[in-house]
């Protein structure tokens, strides 16, 4: 598994896409931090960028990579290596590469300009989102034999979690506005890693005061140690669950 991950990383590092991604993040982060004197304001802007770009790049890059590595996977499948190690090795390799890019592109600027707990939470959220969207990418790559369909499905997943889901949430909130929805809202946030990631960061920032009474409810929940454990484990679920499904499919997949 680790050897496979090593070769995957070796392959990705030469693809230049990863370097471009790191540089892009680095550029965005530095320009946001230098534009604003108040580092927490920059963190908010950076968060908005991270919440859109990181899932998108993670899922599309991983999906394309998976299809491009198909030959490599074919080669490995005929070897005395278990399918799980092959897929997990691929996952590990892609993950380490993308996390490194994020660490360089966002981690370094955050370390320089905002080395506080909010910056840390932003990084943790970014890491978790990267991993869960790689996981989702593996799911769609394994589920779809055709490359175009696989990338299409990944794009749809990203669009769903970035836009459609929140639209649905608005619709639900609108329909049940009369009812007490505190718990429902926390549940709704749990079903979308992007929402969850964003809320954790906002809770860490002073901005929660803006949220008024409802914000206080969220803050009470997400600020408590139970809330932190809860959100971390939900994030973990979002990483493990799609990967497990991908693994199940991949074990029986005909190559």
């Amino acid at each position, binding site marked *: 598994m680790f050897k496979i991950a090593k070769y995957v990383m070796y392959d990705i590092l030469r693809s230049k896409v990863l370097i471009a991604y790191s540089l892009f993040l680095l550029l965005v982060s530095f320009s946001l931090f230098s534009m604003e004197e*108040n580092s927490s*304001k920059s963190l*908010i802007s950076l*968060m*908005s960028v991270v*919440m*859109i770009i990181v899932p998108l790049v993670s899922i599309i890059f991983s999906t394309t990579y998976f299809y491009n590595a198909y030959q490599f996977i074919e080669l490995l499948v005929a070897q005395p290596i278990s399918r799980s190690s092959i897929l997990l090795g691929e996952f590990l390799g892609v993950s380490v590469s993308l996390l490194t890019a994020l660490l360089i592109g966002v981690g370094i600027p955050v370390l320089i300009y905002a080395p506080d707990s909010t910056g840390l939470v932003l990084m943790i959220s970014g890491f978790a989102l990267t991993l869960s969207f790689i996981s989702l990418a593996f799911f769609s790559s394994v589920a779809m034999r055709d490359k175009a369909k696989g990338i299409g499905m990944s794009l749809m997943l990203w669009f769903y979690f*970035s*836009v459609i889901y*929140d*639209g649905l*949430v*608005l619709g639900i*909130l*609108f329909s049940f*506005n009369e009812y007490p*929805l*505190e718990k429902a*809202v926390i549940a*709704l*946030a749990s079903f979308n890693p*992007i*929402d969850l990631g*964003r*809320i954790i960061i*906002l809770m860490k920032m*002073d*901005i929660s*005061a*803006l*949220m*008024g*009474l*409802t*914000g*206080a409810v*969220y803050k009470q929940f997400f600020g408590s140690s139970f809330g932190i454990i809860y959100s971390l484990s939900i994030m973990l679920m979002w990483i493990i669950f799609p990967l497990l499904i991908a693994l199940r499919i991949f074990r029986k997949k005909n190559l």
Partner: protein
Amino acid sequence: MKSLALSCFLLLVSCFFSEAKTIIVCSECKVTQLTTALDLAADFDTILVKKGIYTSVNTEIKKQVVIIGENYPVIDGQEKDEVLVVKADNVILSGLWIKNSKRGSMKDYAGIRVVDSRNVKIINCKLENTFFGIYLANSKNCLISGNHSKGANYGNSDTGNGVQLWKCDSIKIENNHMEGHRDGIYFEFAHFCLIEKNLCEKNFRYGLHFMFSDSDVYRKNTFQNNGTGVAVMYTKNVEMYDNIFRNNWGDAAYGLLLKDISNSIIERNTFTNNTVGVTMEGSNSITFSKNNFASNGYALKVMANCIRDTFMYNNFTANTFDAATNGELRENSFKYNYWDKYEGYDLNRDKIGDIPFRPVSLYSMIIEQMPYAVMLLRSFTVEILNRAEKSIPGIVPETFQDYAPMMKPHSL
């Protein structure tokens, strides 16, 4: 230095009245207690209190005397009752360090209470651990200047107000520093007062709070880090110039709350880092001009029951939401403001944008209607919705718009 000059002046003045004498109070002097000095004193006498600690439980000043402290003598109420109570006109209190009034809910125990008096001056005093600081009731033409009051039970809710005025007229409050009280400055039925250059901070409720206090002027004050901000109610003819409202951040905090305020002018003030810069309810005919709103959660929250208010030449920058409301506004006018979120153009180069700006975003309307939607704050979807609404307006109030938004910020 100031107090020294003043005391010299007062001494000089007292010399002109041949019958006026000066009584010196100190531990080695003939007179060792302030209360004894007051018994000995006649009208127009001066009492000079030297450095030391003097017990003063509910000491009543019924003669027109001047009491001057040298090197801040401590006047200690021993938490038994009020410390000093002025019940005569023309009394001057200066350079005293008032400590330890009683606390309680039955009576508003004060460090210095002034009752039914005129021309009283309270200058350069320090107040510490007093329930209320300086309390003026039914008095006129008084001056409260250069005092510093630190609330009793600092940081705890069990404390009164820094300066309280009740049924007063023509009071000048300047250069005071109020902290750690319930309200920094509190007025009820105080008219024609001038409040200038005060600093009210870290009060656990309001920096400034008044009701039924018409025709007062507030200039160059700073209200910061107060629990809720500044709340003013049921008053007309308020004028606020060059004040700073900042860092009032919390679930229900704001820079300035205007509730049932009318015919007032709010000009050249700065509102920064407040959860809400200005929130207005039932307030009519108010002119907001040349104010700076920066880095607030909401710059303005204007409820639909506000009528005929004018917002002109203000700057709105780096606020999360520029404005929010709960319905259509009537007869309010927004003109010549600068909004950093404005994305219009200026073809005729008159520095005024050619298309109106709508400061209320769709999302702020949504939150107003369904607070739970706050979970989508800063999400991509919300960004898309706001942009869509900007290009094809449909939901945000038609009336809430600036018809002549500026292209560049005003230099204020």
